[in-house]
């Protein structure tokens, strides 16, 4: 259904669109980073496309894919014309910056903050790019594939729980009912 949207995109921005695909009705367009603001504005304002609702912003970490390790993914929807589109932007590991689409859709604000929180994608032009779910003291970005599984960063000193019996040490006496 949104094939029409992809066609329009390719027609208007032959330079900016790197690649499009439509699998099972998931219309996806890879957009060049430098053109994303322009493309987004066109998608929102054009009467025939009218994407007025931001759905989500997230990222992917293809750890082995160098140098374009990260992809930022946007989902948008049109409440009047009822079609959806997925935009993807490839980002370098060294230069992990992309324009914030909060400037186009206000509702992207917290999604982009979350994306920064979890993956460390820098959204330039974002009004308040700081951690949203994690605490300020947290170091690193936990959803990156190279974040250690055991990477805990407690805010307070943890108690020693060595005295608490493990499952094997529980005696029948402990299970005595009153």
């Amino acid at each position: 259904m949104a094939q029409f949207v992809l066609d329009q995109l390719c027609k208007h921005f032959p330079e900016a669109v790197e690649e499009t695909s439509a699998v099972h009705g998931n219309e996806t367009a890879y957009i060049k980073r430098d053109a994303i603001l322009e493309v987004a504005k066109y998608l929102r304002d054009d009467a025939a496309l009218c994407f007025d609702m931001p759905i989500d912003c997230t990222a992917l970490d293809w750890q082995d894919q160098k140098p374009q390790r990260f992809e930022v993914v946007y989902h948008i929807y049109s409440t009047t014309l009822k079609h959806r589109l997925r935009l993807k932007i490839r980002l370098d590991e060294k230069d992990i910056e992309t324009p914030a689409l909060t400037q186009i859709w206000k509702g992207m604000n917290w999604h982009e903050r979350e994306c920064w929180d979890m993956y460390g994608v820098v959204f330039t032009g974002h009004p308040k790019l700081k951690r949203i779910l994690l605490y300020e003291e947290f170091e690193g970005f936990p959803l990156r594939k190279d974040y250690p599984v055991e990477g805990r960063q407690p805010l307070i000193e943890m108690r020693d729980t060595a005295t608490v019996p493990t499952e094997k040490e529980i005696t029948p006496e402990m299970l005595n009912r009153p």
Partner: protein
Amino acid sequence: MSETALLESEIIVTRRESAEGWLRDAIENFGQKGVNWSRKYSLFSYPFVTACCGMEFMSVSGPRYDIAQYGAEFPRFSPRQADLIWIVGTISQKQAPVLKRVWEQMCEPKWGIAFGACASTGGFYDNYTTVQGADMVIPIDVYIPGCPPRPEQVLDGLRLLQNKIKTESGRVMV
């Protein structure tokens, strides 16, 4: 002093001592027992509800399972008035300081129950954001397993705690 008199006085002394001991025991022990007994049936609970286990906690407090029959129905939403903290749900790293602050505000004597797998051990959230058991933050008296635990299990846990209060035993219960 004649032999018989010595014997008698010894007997008298022994009797008096034992009588005094009995009286002291009666006053102290019965007093303490009475205090323990009344504590055990008037637990003012502070529900520290953070996640899905809260639904089960509501069910326990509701009329069907009726935690009121054990004297623990009165939730105080101020830790200063509570003597039992229920940790119901996942404790995240961000929340650990809050939990600690709440616990420190409670007056002695105070007890803690870890309600559910998450509060007891971190559950299946073995990752960067979850504290691996509330006992890493505050001491816990009774651990109730389950995801979420059945209300019967919760009541059983409460009975365990009451037993612990009654006998003043220091051991951890499961």
